């Protein structure tokens, strides 16, 4: 079993105003974010001062197969949303097949609410580069790619610079640190398409095509980029590897829970007093995070929130004590996703929120499969009518029906994601939908939800 502090506090049933057990210092565990406040945090020099590239040395002292087993044993699970064990993904790559192998890092962070990889890459890009070198040594790849969404030029600049520095220092190129490993990294900027966060769509996009998902099997591990064995990993997953190597898998497993070990970045946003990044062992609760960061904005209370972006079914204030790990969130009826904790207070109209998310899914639907392409279109028509008071009661069942025809029937998981806010909002806030219909309009004042609403009142 595990020994971390959140584990202890999770069993704590004392009233929340006690501030929970354990001080915030003990609940948090900055690893990737440990030196983000250094004035030159993104540079190789700073990274080295914080034991950067030490994990790589330890990794290169192992055989690639042992390295894969080590990462597997650490229990690291994918941080891009699905939680698939990272070491197992590496192990799926067939060895001795005579084909080139590729590592592709998914830095297309676009899921509404998700904002962890972009600050990580802006402040500490070398953790990703080091993790990539380790991963490529393990899977025996000589060429890796970072597929960065295009809309974040400040991050692109620092990735260009980090890769340049890594080449100059001999961490990339030929015979890295005398290990015999050759590796090139290409930084690739996307061009604006949410679907490219889906790993097979990302591969099509990286091949210079429209980003549309591929039929699986074959899985990318067998036929990925250029039909060669390919590992696609999220930024945070790969960036977590160097610390595991440097500090040991037992150190890693001592954090978090048995099935969800380790540390991770939680992104708090919305109507909270302390929006931002919180690196903590898996299994912390939203209540603990809010308690340490000042809670909701003054005078307001939590109404609904997403545990991992808009594609994960929403929660309410009943779920403040759900442990935020893969099992805990799953058992409560949602998904951990990207740990994007978007918090909305009582001034926010659920119908407005869901309509906007659904407009997003309709806009971003790649058009390949009918359930998602047509379904999201009709969901938007119905939701807009309801939001503006032109809906009828039977529309609510129709929403559920259409969402049901997308969920599980679309070509890729992004269709399922479009159904999540519909199902969950109807489950928890059906009355609010009905109010829009019977009252022939939205009962909320959008001005009260803005960042500046309360300062204007107080001024």
């Amino acid at each position, binding site marked *: 079993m595990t020994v971390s502090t959140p584990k202890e506090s999770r069993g704590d049933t004392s009233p929340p105003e006690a501030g929970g057990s354990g001080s915030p210092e003990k609940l948090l565990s900055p690893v990737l974010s440990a030196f983000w406040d250094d004035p030159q945090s993104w540079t190789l020099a700073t990274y080295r001062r914080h034991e950067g590239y030490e994990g790589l040395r330890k990794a290169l002292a192992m055989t690639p197969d042992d390295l894969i087993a080590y990462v597997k044993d650490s229990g690291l699970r994918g941080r891009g949303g699905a939680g698939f064990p990272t070491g197992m993904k590496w192990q799926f790559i067939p060895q001795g097949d005579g084909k080139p192998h590729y590592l592709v890092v998914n830095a297309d962070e676009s899921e509404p609410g998700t904002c962890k990889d972009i600050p990580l890459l802006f402040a500490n890009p070398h953790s990703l580069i080091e993790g990539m070198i380790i991963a490529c040594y393990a899977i025996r790849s000589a060429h890796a790619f970072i597929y960065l969404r295009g809309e974040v*030029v400040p991050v692109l*600049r620092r990735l260009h610079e980090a890769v340049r520095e890594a080449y100059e220092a001999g961490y990339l190129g030929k015979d890295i640190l005398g290990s015999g490993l050759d590796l090139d990294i290409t930084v690739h900027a996307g061009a*604006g398409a949410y679907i490219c966060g889906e790993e097979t769509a990302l591969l099509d996009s990286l091949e210079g095509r429209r980003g549309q998902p591929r039929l699986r099997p074959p899985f990318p591990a067998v036929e990925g980029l250029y039909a060669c064995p390919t590992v696609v990993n999220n930024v945070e997953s790969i960036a977590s590897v160097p610390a595991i190597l440097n500090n040991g898998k037992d150190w890693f497993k001592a954090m978090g829970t048995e099935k969800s070990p380790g540390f991770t970045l939680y992104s708090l946003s919305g109507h909270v007093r302390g929006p931002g990044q919180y690196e903590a062992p898996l299994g912390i609760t939203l209540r603990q995070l809010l308690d340490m960061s000042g809670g909701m904005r003054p005078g307001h209370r939590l109404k609904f929130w997403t545990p991992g972006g808009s594609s994960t079914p929403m929660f309410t204030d009943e779920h403040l004590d759900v442990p935020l790990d893969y099992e805990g969130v799953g058992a409560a009826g949602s998904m951990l996703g990207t740990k994007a904790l978007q918090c909305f207070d009582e001034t926010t109209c659920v119908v407005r929120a869901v309509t906007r998310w659904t407009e997003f899914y309709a806009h971003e639907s790649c058009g390949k499969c009918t359930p998602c392409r047509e379904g999201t279109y009709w969901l938007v028509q119905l939701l807009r009518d309801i939001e503006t008071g032109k809906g009828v009661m039977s529309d609510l069942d129709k929403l559920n029906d259409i969402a049901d025809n997308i969920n599980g029937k679309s070509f890729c998981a992004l269709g399922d994601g479009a159904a999540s806010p519909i199902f969950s909002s109807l489950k928890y806030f059906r009355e609010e939908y009905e109010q829009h219909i019977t009252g022939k309009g939205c009962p909320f004042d959008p001005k009260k939800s803005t960042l500046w609403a309360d300062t204007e009142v107080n001024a």
Partner: protein
Amino acid sequence: MTDIQLGMPQLPAPDYPAEVRERLAADAVEVIARYPDSRSALLPLLHLIQSQEGYVSRTGIRFCADVLGLTTAEVTAVATFYTMYRRKPSGDYQVGVCTNTLCAVMGGDAIFDELKEHLGVGNNETTPDGKVTLEHIECNAACDFAPVVMVNWEFFDNQTPESAKAMVDDLLAGRPVEPTRGAPLCTYKETARILAGFPDEREGAVEATGGAGHASLIGLRIARGETPHTSIVHPRGETTTQGGE
């Protein structure tokens, strides 16, 4: 009668002037060399041609097709799939207001409405002087800095209608504008060249605005005990007595 615009380029496309074509061809060689398969260079090459004309012109499409051995139809199919490729001549500064749910609720909708009125343009339209193109954008991975406005894909965090209007006024007046996170603004065309994979060579561009934004650091500061937590307001307000389950 409704005239349906499919947005297809009129053929045959005129070629670039010789010296432009030569320069872009040399850049294209460099871009293609980064990939095991030349077609992978298509997305960066479309960024590259935007660095020439500020949008994906039919000439640019023809250029990409020529250097990659594709048909113009194949290139057009890709160019029209991605939102960052502009289909018509547009402004030097692309001002994008996030109106996805969280930013919209936090004030993005109000900012977008006020900017439309202030600039006298609608979504995806450009001011008459060719300086500013306004659009609403989807989530740009900065929700902890909501509401967010992007200009040429640099971050302008925690915006208000007033701050956004003042910022576009500076752009229209030609005054230098600096983002909250990112480098001092360059033009859309110059930004497109960085997106094509050519590092920003401007002095100080990489280090501009420092390590991480304030919101990115909040957890780290609390973990160090730097932030006093005396001002806790409980999220559940008056209903806190229910306690844990």
